[in-house]
């Protein structure tokens, strides 16, 4: 199920988007070039990006512009980044934190 806004009465339609593959917790997902990790996962209906360190409860995108740090994820086994500010790239491996 994709949540893409392909058609828009004022902004026009999405055309010729280049598709790439990313991996979230080792599962493959389709993303569009230009997506952030946050938008790519939301387009695929994945709302939970990490689990709270103490309570274990899910967390997802909250502010979407880098202020709240709620959407942090690990990319390529090294860096912890904010999903909402990080563009996707082909083959990117993203991991939820817990």
């Amino acid at each position, binding site marked *: 199920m994709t*949540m*893409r*806004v*392909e*058609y*828009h*009465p*004022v*902004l026009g339609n*999405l055309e010729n988007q280049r598709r790439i593959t990313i991996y979230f917790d080792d599962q493959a997902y389709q993303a569009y070039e230009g*997506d*952030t990790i*946050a*938008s790519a996962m*939301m*387009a695929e209906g994945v*709302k*939970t*990006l990490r689990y*709270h360190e103490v309570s274990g*409860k*899910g*967390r*997802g*995108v*909250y*502010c*979407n*512009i*880098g*202020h709240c740090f*709620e959407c942090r994820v690990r990319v390529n086994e090294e860096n912890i980044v904010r999903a*909402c*500010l*990080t*563009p996707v790239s082909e083959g990117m491996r993203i991991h939820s934190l817990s």
Partner: protein
Amino acid sequence: MSDLLIIGAGPAGLSAAIAAAEKGLSVTVIDEFPKAGGRLLGQLHQEPNGEWWNGIQKGEQLSQRARQLGVTIQCEVSVYDISQSKNGWDVYTTKGEYKAEKLLLATGATESPIPVKGWTLPGVMTIGAAQIMGNVHRVKPGNSCIIIGANVLSMAIANELKLCGVNVKEIIIPKADITSNEAGNPEQVLSSLMRLTHLAPTPILRQLGKIGKLVHPKIAIKLFPRKGIRMFDIPLRLKNAALEIVGDRFATGVRTANIKANGEIDHTSEKVVDADFVCIAGGLTPLSELASIIGCSFKYIPELGGHVPVHNEQMQTNIPGLYVAGNITGIESAKVAMAQGRVAGLAIAADIMNDWEQMETSINKAIENVNITRDKALIQFHPGISDARKKFYQKSEVDLTQISKIKKREA
């Protein structure tokens, strides 16, 4: 080393960059978002003349113009510290150190949270988050949503979400408590909506503005229908409060109840309204962390959205060489931010060339343009902005001549 480093590639930062570059300054703009444009990016509303204000286009035009003038714009750069050096500023970022003689903070605003019970569930986000997701990334956070918080921003974005194909089921208010303050009081919410100008971005706000001149909010809220009034076919329900966002692994809806005009809850009326996602609209407040780590003085001005760095009409702060423009100086529309950016860009050029006299006319003209833009602004976040600004600038501790004196003394 640039003459000017601007933090924030939004309407204020880009306009300042253009104005300064036109005067021959070397300018670098950095921003942590992957695209330049700042808060312009999500904006999409109809002007009273029927034309659409397309923020994405506007942002592209500004960054294109800036680049034509030789401005360097670098995205995905986050600032984590700033220190003053002998020659200006050292700015420490995730992409290394930047040096500049003058520094402009155009960091914009951040959304105030309303911590409704259940707000940490995935699928709960700020109204601005949903706006960026829909208009910029072209992704719907879900097919249906409920908006908690009735203000000018949430009402404008509700329609934008609808244009993205989201079923916005209703706009309700948070229940009255210590965190929601006035946002949880139906009479005060209606009163602030009614004070909005006739130029407001939605027909219903214009209507409320007209009624506001004739009817006292105390009476108006009594007459306000419990099922709400419809705006772009979206029910605006000021007599319904969100008690809790419900859901096990992610948000699935909101438990709501009828409330009286003073916010008192009728618990017998509680029910759960289903939605794929929930937006919290707590309003905007200036994003001023960087001014604070530099040691800038602050003043609390409720009409401007909270604590703002002390500055004068030329956009100088009380720290020589440090300027501010846009929503960091108070919450207003993007057009005001653009006009302020121009003032800052010109003032910085005058500062660098050490020639205030020659630039005086153009700076004053730019300041006048800020005032005109403010008076005509479509979205007035607070009815008292203009007066609060005037008072603030009259009393401003930042006096241009004083700064020049300091400079002379240092030299």
